[in-house]
């Protein structure tokens, strides 16, 4: 099957393989490793580097040995990337199986090649390299992309489930296997309890996030998502902690006379290691957030700071034998909120992408190693051990899921249904973590290491392939969606309307839970932390600006395709086609249905969406932008009718101009000055795309009765660093920005003339231009401050 997938790649892939083979063949002579495999005999052509002193200057020589390690590593990574490209190009695949399947297969392929050419794979993975270089990026990525609000809302359940679940699994599997080992018939009696426990701890490290992409389309509710995510996040850390503790035990006690004191010490150590790690992480997170406060002039080092501090937290924790994984996770979580607000837009993107890239590379390498190990001679197959391992993994996971959730359901407002629990149970896919830990077992303490590795590999292959491939259909089946029935156009339209309606009302209701704690934290955060950690003169919720900027280009396109023409929105349609009872053929109806299905806007995803291997696609952004452009236009339309705008023509006057409307107008619908300001009332949900409509609500500090002028909503057209005149520089003061925006008023005008021309009349086009023109990039402040900050500006007029 792997070869099938490689077919679409074309010649490049084969070229690489050929090169690898050739070099593999050549290097086996040149390598100085202690491998005693058979010598190959095609060494005649290449000058042996370094073995004899050269007598003449060689014009052409080859030194493969020098570059072997990086060369092969790069080739592997490239191979995996090509495989991923093919995986995503071939459409049905990503929905069918998790991407880790693909990586495992690529690993197996590389392993087959290396085995086939009898080539000694470079010893890239050993304990220090894994723990120092390969593991941190993976954990960092998990921690950074974790949605904080749902995480903290569910933190009780997550800690309960992840912590206790890992422990129950580890000890359960370990003990059961020990009991099996006691049975003489299986020939396993030399495996003692500690070894079994250790094996249990490493095999219980699950990687459920890998399967999230598979059932993304199914409406997995947020809570379930968070549980899976949280488990993945904490699971690695807990397994490694347990692993290290048990290794320490094994080193100390070669026999099985562990005293209760030791066990207590072990437990205490577990707690200290965990909490200490988190503590370190938080400290480093704060430090790095603080430092990014001052980097506005050298934004190029911002990603560096983020990565270095996270890594430093990991290393610092590891120095003290605390859990580096938990440290780096805590660092990422703490840092994220503040750093995102401080760094520039490009740094933010860089950080995101680079993190994904690093973790992707790490994981690829680990899987390649796994593949190399699979296809090799270092296996020890023991039927009993392997089968029972597999069985116990499933059994104990089921036990832990159902037992723990039963208990935690008693305390939750929204209990998890059995369906949810089944999904959680079934998503227990093992991944790179277990393999690494097994691979790194010290041989001296574990004479039967090969057996452990074999069993681990079997479990990984089984879970990744069988569970990974079948979980999609299972979830869809459990979701019980009526897919067979063809809905009529009516139903489709109305269903979608209701979905939107429901999503809207849900947004009005906001997020509920644990008000007090969250509010207290928010207050503390606003009062102290943000003052210290966030740059000055930044608006409070400028995180909004990091997401979903309105593309000028898209607005222009929309204008040019006539969408924004006023005729599109006028209510009395000129050509009144009243009763045209056309007989529509079934094909017409079909095509209508298709049009509807494909073109209706998607309901805003309330559930989270996380893909381990990829960053979010752009479709929802595009949709959001279209909707917003439309709204802005409708708004302009509706306010344009029947309002006299006192100052239309003068764009770029001395004063800062706000397009203003007479204060009180009677129309209820659309007549109000449209002001949608993003606040973090409902918790600054990072997934929500929002454009800031800067506003000034007149009912506050300004006197009510007076006909004051309102400040028009200034929709900030932000760009990701493209045309600087509308560029969003967040590190300026409000006033400076408005001043610059004033200068910028002139620039956007011509661009929007395209829009203007489609509007009716000439005398209002100026108005429109200035209306659009006043859409400069501005910061917004939450309403309260707005009053105070805007009134001095008003007075400037």
């Amino acid at each position, binding site marked *: 099957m792997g070869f099938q997938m490689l077919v679409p790649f074309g010649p490049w892939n084969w070229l690489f393989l050929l090169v690898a083979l050739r070099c593999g063949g050549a290097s086996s002579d040149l390598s100085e490793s202690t491998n005693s495999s058979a010598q190959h005999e095609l060494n005649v052509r290449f000058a042996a580097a370094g073995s004899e002193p050269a007598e003449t200057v060689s014009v052409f020589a080859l030194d493969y040995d020098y570059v072997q390690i990086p060369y092969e590593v790069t080739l592997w990574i490239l191979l995996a990337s090509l495989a991923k490209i093919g995986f995503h190009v071939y459409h049905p695949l990503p929905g069918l199986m998790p991407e880790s399947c693909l990586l495992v297969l690529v690993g197996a392929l590389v392993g087959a090649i290396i085995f086939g050419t009898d080539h000694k794979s470079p010893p890239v993975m050993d304990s220090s390299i894994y723990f120092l270089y390969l593991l941190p990026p993976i954990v960092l990525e998990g921690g950074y992309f974790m949605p904080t609000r749902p995480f903290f809302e569910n933190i009780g359940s997550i800690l309960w489930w992840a912590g206790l679940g890992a422990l129950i699994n580890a000890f359960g599997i370990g003990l059961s296997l020990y009991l099996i080992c006691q049975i003489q018939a299986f020939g396993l009696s030399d495996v003692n309890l500690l070894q079994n426990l250790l094996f249990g701890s490493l095999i219980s490290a699950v990687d459920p996030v890998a399967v999230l992409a598979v059932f993304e389309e199914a409406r997995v509710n947020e809570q379930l998502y968070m549980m899976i995510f949280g488990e993945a996040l904490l699971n690695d850390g807990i397994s490694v902690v347990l692993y290290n503790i048990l290794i320490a035990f094994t080193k100390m006690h070669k026999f099985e006379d562990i005293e209760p004191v030791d066990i207590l010490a072990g437990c205490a150590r577990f707690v200290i290691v965990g909490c200490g790690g988190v503590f370190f992480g938080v400290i480093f997170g704060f430090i790095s957030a603080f430092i990014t406060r001052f980097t506005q002039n050298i934004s190029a080092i911002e990603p560096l700071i983020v990565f270095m501090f996270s890594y430093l937290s990991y290393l610092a924790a590891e120095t003290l034998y605390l859990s580096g994984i938990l440290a780096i996770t805590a660092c990422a979580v703490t840092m994220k909120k503040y750093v995102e607000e401080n760094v520039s837009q490009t740094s933010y993107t860089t950080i995101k992408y680079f993190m994904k890239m690093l973790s992707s590379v790490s994981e690829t390498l680990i899987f390649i190693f796994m593949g190399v190990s699979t296809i090799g001679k270092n296996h020890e197959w023991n039927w009993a051990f392997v089968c029972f391992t597999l069985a116990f993994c499933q059994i104990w996971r089921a036990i832990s899921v159902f037992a723990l959730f039963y208990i935690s359901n008693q305390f939750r407002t929204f209990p998890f249904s059995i369906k949810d629990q089944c999904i959680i149970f079934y998503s227990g896919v093992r991944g790179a973590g277990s393999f690494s830990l097994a691979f790194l077992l010290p041989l001296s303490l574990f004479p039967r290491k090969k057996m452990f590795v074999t069993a681990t590999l079997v479990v990984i292959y089984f879970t990744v392939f069988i569970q990974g491939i079948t979980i999609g259909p299972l979830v869809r089946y459990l979701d019980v969606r009526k897919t067979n029935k063809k809905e009529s156009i009516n139903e489709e339209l109305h269903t979608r309307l209701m979905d*939107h309606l429901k999503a*809207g009302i849900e947004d009005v209701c906001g997020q509920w839970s644990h008000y007090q704690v969250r509010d207290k934290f928010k207050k503390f955060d606003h009062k102290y932390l943000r003052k210290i950690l966030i740059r000055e003169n930044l608006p409070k919720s400028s995180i909004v600006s990091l997401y979903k900027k309105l593309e000028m280009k898209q607005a222009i396109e929309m204008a040019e395709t006539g969408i924004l023409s006023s005729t599109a929105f006028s209510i009395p349609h000129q050509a009144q086609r009243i009763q*045209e009872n056309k007989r529509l053929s079934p094909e017409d109806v079909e095509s209508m249905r298709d049009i509807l299905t494909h*073109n209706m806007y998607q309901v805003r995803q309330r559930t989270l969406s996380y893909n381990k291997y990829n960053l979010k696609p752009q479709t929802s952004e595009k949709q959001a932008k279209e*909707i917003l452009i439309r709204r802005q236009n409708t708004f302009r339309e509706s306010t344009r009718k029947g309002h006299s705008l006192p100052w239309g023509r003068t764009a770029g006057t001395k004063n800062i101009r706000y397009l203003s409307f007479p204060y009180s107008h009677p129309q209820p619908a659309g007549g109000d000055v449209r002001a949608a300001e*993003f606040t973090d009332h409902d918790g600054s949900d990072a997934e929500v795309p929002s454009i800031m409509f800067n506003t000034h609500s007149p009912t506050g500090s300004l006197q009510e009765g007076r006909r004051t002028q309102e400040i028009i909503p200034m929709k900030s057209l932000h760009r990701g660093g493209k045309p600087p005149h509308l560029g969003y520089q967040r590190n300026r003061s409000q006033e400076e920005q408005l001043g610059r925006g004033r200068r910028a008023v002139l620039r956007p005008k011509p661009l929007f003339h395209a829009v203007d021309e489609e509007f009716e009349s000439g005398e209002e086009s100026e108005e429109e231009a200035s209306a659009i023109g006043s859409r400069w990039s501005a910061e917004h402040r939450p309403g309260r401050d707005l009053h105070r900050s805007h009134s001095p500006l008003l007075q400037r007029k």
Partner: protein
Amino acid sequence: MGSRSSHAARIPDVDSIRRETGFSQASLLRLYHRFRALDWNEKGYLSRVDLQQIGALAVNPLGDRIIDSFFPDGSLHLDFPGFVRVLARFRPVDDEDNRNRDPKEPEPLNSRMNKLRFAFQLYDLDRDGKISRQEMLQVLRLMVGVQVTEEQLESIADRTVQEADEDGDGAVSFLEFAKSLEKMNIEQKMSIRILK
């Protein structure tokens, strides 16, 4: 958590609201908190502007209409009972409720018919009790991406009205609307779990 009951006392007319909407005490309290949170300058009522501050509504294609539905009859201020009344429509339907109901009392706000009526209002802007072709077209326009041409939209709107219209008046009345959706599980579609 212990101070909850004292907060409940602060909600004006708690009991009448409870009876009318059927919300539990806890839910009402949460809604009250939410109301207060939305009303950031503590006016005691909400205006459109306050609701527009909810960022997510800005990217909802029906955002404006949803906000308008909170302000029936063109009023400008939304007080807490009004707020809750609208949200009550989205309460999950409790079968127990229906069985114990006194048939002489008005239908509970979250009955199927009332949910449908609420959805109907989103279409029927001029409140004439009928969805005309124009209104259907407008809603379609809101909900569909920009790639669809005007003619396609018009024909879809035509077809939609045609399918549902039974008495041939070129518009969809509420009963026709309800009938066209009789197979759909409205109770589930228009219920929000947390609003128990």
